[in-house]
């Protein structure tokens, strides 16, 4: 009886995207933070939202979370986030920053409070996550290190049976060990195909192998939106010796840079129509890092066409 009652809703959720936006726009005075974004995020994806400071990433996430007003159409799990934030938060979790846990709160109080207000919180699960850390139940948040606060917040969030998790710079200021642990436990202990994760970070190397989808955002617009499979088949990085550089340039790279006497070219195979094998003959070919593609795409946006053919 219970299952029957629950399943139509679940099926409906599978059919509709988790996030759907059309013409999403937000301005602060004369500054345009979001310039009419169209967005569709399907269930089970892990989307990385990458962009320079002030590109509009946080504004987009805040709109999705019901933290800021916006123009245009936006639906998150079928709800209007601005007017239904409290209802939406039954199915959405977010970590907006590393330092939003109230500093006066004790770990045990945080567990009590979330268990008290959130019907989908599994306290046992959170206790299990905390047992793997050095966090004491009686400690106040202000007594914990930055990394431990992030662990605590993640333990709380992962114990909530939510459909969408939004992470806005969740690992800012953490050392590499904590950052690695953070994403490892997110993938191993939390993620499954019924959950959707959106993450923004400047430490893109951390999430390259975590994402299923990638989105670059710049000046309030989406400048790149692709799956990671597409990313891997579309972009190629070739490291060429000086004598091969001229040949490489002939294939119209979208970006080039010098490293230790060699030139590294970045190719967009979709645009120049050259196949991998011919480029492989020019030098060592490999999939670029997100960071390198980001620099290439953003550099191009920032300086117009800097001698780079398009």
């Amino acid at each position, binding site marked *: 009886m219970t299952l029957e009652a629950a399943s139509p809703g679940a099926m409906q959720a599978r059919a509709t995207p988790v996030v759907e936006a059309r013409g999403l726009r937000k301005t602060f005075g004369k500054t345009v933070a979001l310039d009419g974004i169209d967005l569709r995020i399907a269930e089970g994806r892990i989307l990385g939202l990458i962009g320079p400071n002030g590109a509009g990433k946080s504004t987009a996430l805040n709109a999705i*979370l019901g933290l800021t007003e916006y123009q245009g159409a936006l639906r998150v799990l079928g709800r209007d986030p601005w007017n239904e934030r409290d209802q939406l938060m039954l199915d959405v979790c977010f970590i907006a920053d590393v330092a939003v846990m*109230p500093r006066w709160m004790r770990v045990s109080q945080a567990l009590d409070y979330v268990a008290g207000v959130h019907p989908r919180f599994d306290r046992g699960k959170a206790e299990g996550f905390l047992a793997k850390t050095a966090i004491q139940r009686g400690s106040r948040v202000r007594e914990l290190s930055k990394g431990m606060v992030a662990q605590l917040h993640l333990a709380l969030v992962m114990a909530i049976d939510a459909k969408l998790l939004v992470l806005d710079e969740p690992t800012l200021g953490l050392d590499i060990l904590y950052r690695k642990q953070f994403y490892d436990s997110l993938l191993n202990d939390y993620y499954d195909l019924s959950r959707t994760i959106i993450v923004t970070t400047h430490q893109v190397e951390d999430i390259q192998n975590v994402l299923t989808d990638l989105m670059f955002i710049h000046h309030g617009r989406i400048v790149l939106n692709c799956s990671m499979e597409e990313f891997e088949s579309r972009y190629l990085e070739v490291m060429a010796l000086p004598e091969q550089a001229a040949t490489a340039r002939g294939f119209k790279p979208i970006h080039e840079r010098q490293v230790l006497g060699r030139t590294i070219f970045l190719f967009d195979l979709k645009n120049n129509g050259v196949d991998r094998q011919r480029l492989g003959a020019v030098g060592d070919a490999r999939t670029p890092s997100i960071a390198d593609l980001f620099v290439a795409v953003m550099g191009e946006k920032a300086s117009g066409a800097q001698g780079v053919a398009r």
Partner: protein
Amino acid sequence: MNTSSSGMPDFPLEARAVSPAVVSPTRPLYWSVRRELWENRSIYIAPLAAGALYVVGLLISLIHLPRDVREIAMMEPAQQSTMLSHYYAHAGMLLVLTGFLVGIFYSLDALHSERRDRSILFWKSLPVSDLTTVLSKASIPLVVLPVIVFAITIVLQLIAFVLSTGVLLTTDAGASMLWTKLPLFQIQLGLLYSLTVMVLWHAPVYGWLIFVSGWARRATFLWAVLPPLALCVGEYLSFHTTYFTDLLLKDRLFGFAGRAFNLVAPDGTPVDAHFIPVAQFTPGRFLSSPGLWVGLIVAGALLFAAVRLRRYREPI
């Protein structure tokens, strides 16, 4: 019994009980109020500290209690009750004043601290509505503090009564007058009545402070105090009248007393504020005074504005 119930024995009811729990709307409110008590421990520590101060004063005063009681015994009977009430009334006055001050400073910080320490982003990540949040914060000065003040005062008065009895029994003054003349129950009833009346009368004050705490980016105290003050000063400078001063300062802070109590005794003398007999209570006059209802409407409007405002609020 009827046929339908025997045909479908209890099954639908059981199924309903097992189906996914519907969240009671009071549960987030309950936990949000507890959250306030965790964060603002002054809500109970300050009244407890005031209570401790009272006990210290009480212990010292017990030294001269037998002498006082002998003096009171020589007064006329009507005055004896009032004089004996003093110690018990002082506990109430001390606690009411403490509760009022805690309520003022709590309200001024209520919707400000969560923005200052950025934790508003944590609270907003949970399924707790802005209405629940503001109601939980408003309930501290409007419900929680009065209850704490009442409970601590009752305990203090019982301590005072037991200790006084003990001391008097060891001296020749005797405890009989204390037991027969002290109107302890009436004092406590008066305290309950006063707290209720005050909280209803002061509701717009707390409402204003909570609204300002959610509105101002900084210096909440100045934003709360200066605009009303400017209104009073401006009025006086322009018209040489004190209409706003009387309304905002005098009437809104102290006006409940003249409405909720008949402060003139039947014999025409002013009533001693230490002990106001139940016969002098005028709840009908209080409830029918426009100032009460206008104040409650203003309080409701300010709290509603604070709820709407919180949707737009972010860390500062």
